[in-house]
């Protein structure tokens, strides 16, 4: 095993990169240095996080690479980080997407490059830190600190309604997470412990659990987002710059799912059992409703944003089935959605950089001019639809298999949503890519360049890899998920 603090290095490497960038003076010539510094820091982080995966002990369901230091003298708060099967891929997703984001912003961010890169590096640190923390207070600090860079990214480099979107994003998510703070303190008061690992038992009375569950729900349902708490998402996605949308869809939404697995399932099993019908209803409404809404969108980014809500509906169904297939499916669906929706936003970014519009009407017949683009877009579009062989299929399939054990109504709802997702994605693809070029402005649009290939091809490979060898991803997480399910069943059997 590794005897140096690998997880902490991964968490704080981007921050160190940010500190270095802080001391580079920004002007026309040096902005390229800033970009390279940011790229190197994030790539270094990604490579280090691969070590996590390579050295990961598949037979250990609990935390690995643990580091624990006393942090507060008066309370049992620790700086306690580690990785288990659930957080491993969330961390990998963050470290994988951030360098791609830096690359995607290479040319289209022209103003305030320094602040931009600082925000992204800080964001990466807090994202990884959040997934890696085993102490709830540490988790909370990272969870809320995410708001700061994201607020700036949307507000400074966003579109026309960026101010509205950034405030909505910030206040909406803050409202959810402050209630979680109260819940965390109540948990601490009852158990005198802040360790996520310790609290995975069943320590709270039934009524306390219900209260705590609602407080956590407020926070995670906004974050993931579930219908009807999703309204911040389309605004934030549409107004954010491409890289901002990528991180938002790719990682930040997963914070909600991750939180549900860790806190609701892990710590509050009896309350979860009580609230499962609520979650299922909301999820099915979300899937069907947002799919229909997506169908009616005229803005590409907004369409993908609504499709995210629908996909996260599948995730919440999977999580709250609380069986092996459901949870594995939810995890795979989260990873898959992280890759696919990130890639779709990057694809939108490609044509947005060239034409500066996201109206579907504007485009048409891109395949004539951009064959390579049409190909990669197709891979991601099919990934989003859930075609066998892509990552989306594995997730949706597992969730539906799991749902059969629960209720066939849920299966019908989820399946209906999957059909609708095929409808709106294929319809979108048809309108943008196929046909002949009717808009003269598109006549000399260029196909994707080397930089964009470097961004999109790794994503395409990983989408297909996940679709063909899901076990590569399922094996490390299996035992950790089993542990949660066992705990859950023990608690509810009483």
């Amino acid at each position, binding site marked *: 095993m590794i005897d140096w603090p690998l997880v902490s290095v991964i968490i704080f490497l981007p921050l160190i990169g940010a500190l270095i960038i802080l001391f580079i003076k920004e002007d026309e010539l040096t902005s390229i240095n800033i970009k390279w510094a940011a790229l190197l820091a994030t790539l270094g982080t990604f490579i280090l996080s691969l070590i996590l995966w390579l050295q990961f002990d598949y037979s250990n369901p609990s935390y690995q690479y643990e580091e624990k230091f006393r*942090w*507060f*003298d*008066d*309370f049992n708060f620790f700086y306690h980080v580690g990785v288990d099967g659930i957080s491993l891929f969330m961390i990998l997703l963050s470290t994988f997407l951030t360098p791609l984001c830096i690359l995607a912003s290479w040319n289209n961010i022209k103003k*305030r490059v320094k*602040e931009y890169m600082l925000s992204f590096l800080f964001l990466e640190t807090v994202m990884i830190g959040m997934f890696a923390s085993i102490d709830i207070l540490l988790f*909370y*600090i990272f969870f*809320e*600190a995410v*708001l*700061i860079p994201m*607020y*700036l990214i949307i*507000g*400074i480099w966003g579109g026309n309604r*960026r*101010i509205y979107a*950034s*405030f909505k994003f*910030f*206040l909406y998510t*803050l*409202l959810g997470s*402050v*209630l979680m*703070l*109260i819940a965390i*303190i*109540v948990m*601490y*008061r009852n158990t005198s412990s802040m360790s996520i690992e310790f609290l995975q038992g069943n320590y709270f009375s039934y009524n306390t659990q219900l209260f705590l569950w609602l407080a956590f729900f407020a926070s995670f349902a906004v974050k993931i987002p579930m219908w009807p708490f999703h309204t911040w998402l389309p605004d934030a996605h549409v107004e954010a710059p491409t890289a901002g949308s990528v991180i938002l869809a790719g990682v930040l939404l997963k914070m909600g799912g991750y939180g549900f697995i860790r806190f609701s399932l892990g710590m509050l099993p009896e309350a979860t059992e009580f609230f499962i019908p609520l979650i299922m209803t909301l999820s099915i409404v979300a899937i069907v409703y947002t799919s229909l809404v997506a169908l009616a969108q005229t803005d590409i980014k907004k369409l993908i944003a609504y499709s995210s809500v629908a996909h996260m509906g599948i995730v919440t169904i999977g999580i709250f089935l609380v069986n092996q297939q459901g949870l594995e499916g939810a995890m795979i669906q989260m990873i898959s959605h992280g890759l696919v929706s990130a890639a779709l936003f990057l694809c939108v970014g490609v044509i947005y950089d060239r034409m500066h519009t996201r109206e579907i009407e504007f485009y048409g017949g891109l395949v004539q001019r951009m064959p390579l683009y049409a190909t990669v877009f197709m891979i991601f579009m099919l990934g989003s639809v859930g075609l066998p062989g892509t990552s989306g299929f594995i997730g949706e399939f597992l969730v539906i298999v799991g749902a059969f054990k629960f209720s066939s109504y849920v299966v019908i709802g989820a399946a209906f949503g999957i059909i609708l997702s095929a409808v709106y994605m294929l319809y979108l693809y048809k309108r943008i890519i196929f046909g002949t070029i009717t808009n003269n402005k598109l006549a000399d649009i260029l196909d994707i360049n080397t930089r964009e290939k470097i961004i999109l091809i790794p994503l395409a490979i990983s989408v297909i890899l996940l679709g063909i060898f899901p076990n590569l991803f399922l094996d490390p997480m299996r035992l950790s998920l089993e542990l949660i399910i066992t705990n859950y069943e023990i608690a509810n059997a009483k």
Partner: protein
Amino acid sequence: MLNNIYNIFFIPEIFLACSSFVCLLFGLFLKKNAFRQTSNLAVFVLLLTILLVYYDSESNFANYKSLFSHSSFINFFKILALFGSIASIIISKDYFLGIKLKNFEIPVLFLFSTLGMMLMIASHNLMSMYLAIELQSLSLYVAAAIKRDSISSAESGVKYFILGALSSGILLYGFSLIYGFTGSMNFDDISFYLSKYDNLNLGLIFGLVFVMVGLAFKVSAVPFHMWTPDVYEGAPNSITGFFAIVPKIAAVALIYRFCIVPFENFYLEWSQIILFLSIASMFLGAVAAIAQSNIKRLLAYSSIGHIGYILIALVAANDDGIKAASIYMFSYMIMNVAIFAILLSLKVKNEYLINISDLKGLSKSNPIVSLSISIIMLSMAGIPPFIGFFGKFYVFIAAIEQELYVLSILGVLASVISAFYYLRIIKIMYFDESKSEGIINFQISFQSKIILSLSLFVIICFIFYPSLLINISASLTI
């Protein structure tokens, strides 16, 4: 025991009182640079006083023990107030010279007011409490009106004086009722007398309520907050800085000690009042600040909101509450020092900054300054990882320890509302495009720069080593 008569000069308050007179004379006999020299001397005096407080120099002189008490809580707040007043003298020096307000009396007024605050914090007797409050208020009335030729400054001084005098009257009436019904002025004696009874009689309840009203006025808790925005707005910026930073510390310590020491057994009676004050302050502070365009009024409402959170910790009334209040007060002082250090050095078109909208474009012309303001604002809003979050966090821990669930949920909701106006400042600096760049001028003296960097360092780095402050505040006894 008092072996040597000279030892009384090492009682911090007596030392400060004597030194203040020395400062006054010193300024009087200086021909030039009187203001600057007196300020420097005042800072020096305050530093010495901190040392005296830190080394616990006290002697039993005459009736001292029955008038003033002595505990770690008191010393902590005294040191906090002294630091606040040092910081505000240093950061306001250049501002006073800039607006050509060079009366050497200003630092002396600050000294006297600080003396009043130290006595307030320590007072253990209704009479000494009243005199201490008057000493600090009178100095502040004059300070608010110090810019004689400015109508707004005079107005704020008069307004502050009239309302302050009214509240002092109410306070005094409350004292007289308490004295009349318990027959004692000393906190211990009152507490002893009250311990014989299960309920407060009507006269004592009236007395308690009147005193609460007077104290609520001093900490500017809603609904007795009306003077705060107006006085903040009218007074010269540096005086506003002093108002925001220091007197609140003393008033909060006083309201804590008054509630917890003599009326410890009548928690239900006073906690209802504090509960109401707390909720009202949090929400009014949050909502009223949204519409402000003047940064000083905004900070006034923000301070009202902060007082609401500190009062939550008082409602909790346990050891955690005392700890939370001291941590919160510390973070409040640091954040206000930092923001005023910046405000007192920012000039827009050669005028000191007043309108929030003038901050537009600051992020381009002065990226470091705007980053600092953003950090302070986020910290005030209670967003981790900055110190303001930990202040709120400890307050909520104390509240939940006492099972005050509703109060804590209301508290976090108010903090979400207040996040809006803090974010608005960041929005103006970063998101709004400005056409006229470079009209904002940031000039800061070396000393203020040190103060500013230190307080920013504390705001940012508190998270890495919280135990230093937390261990101190955990050991405080009231």
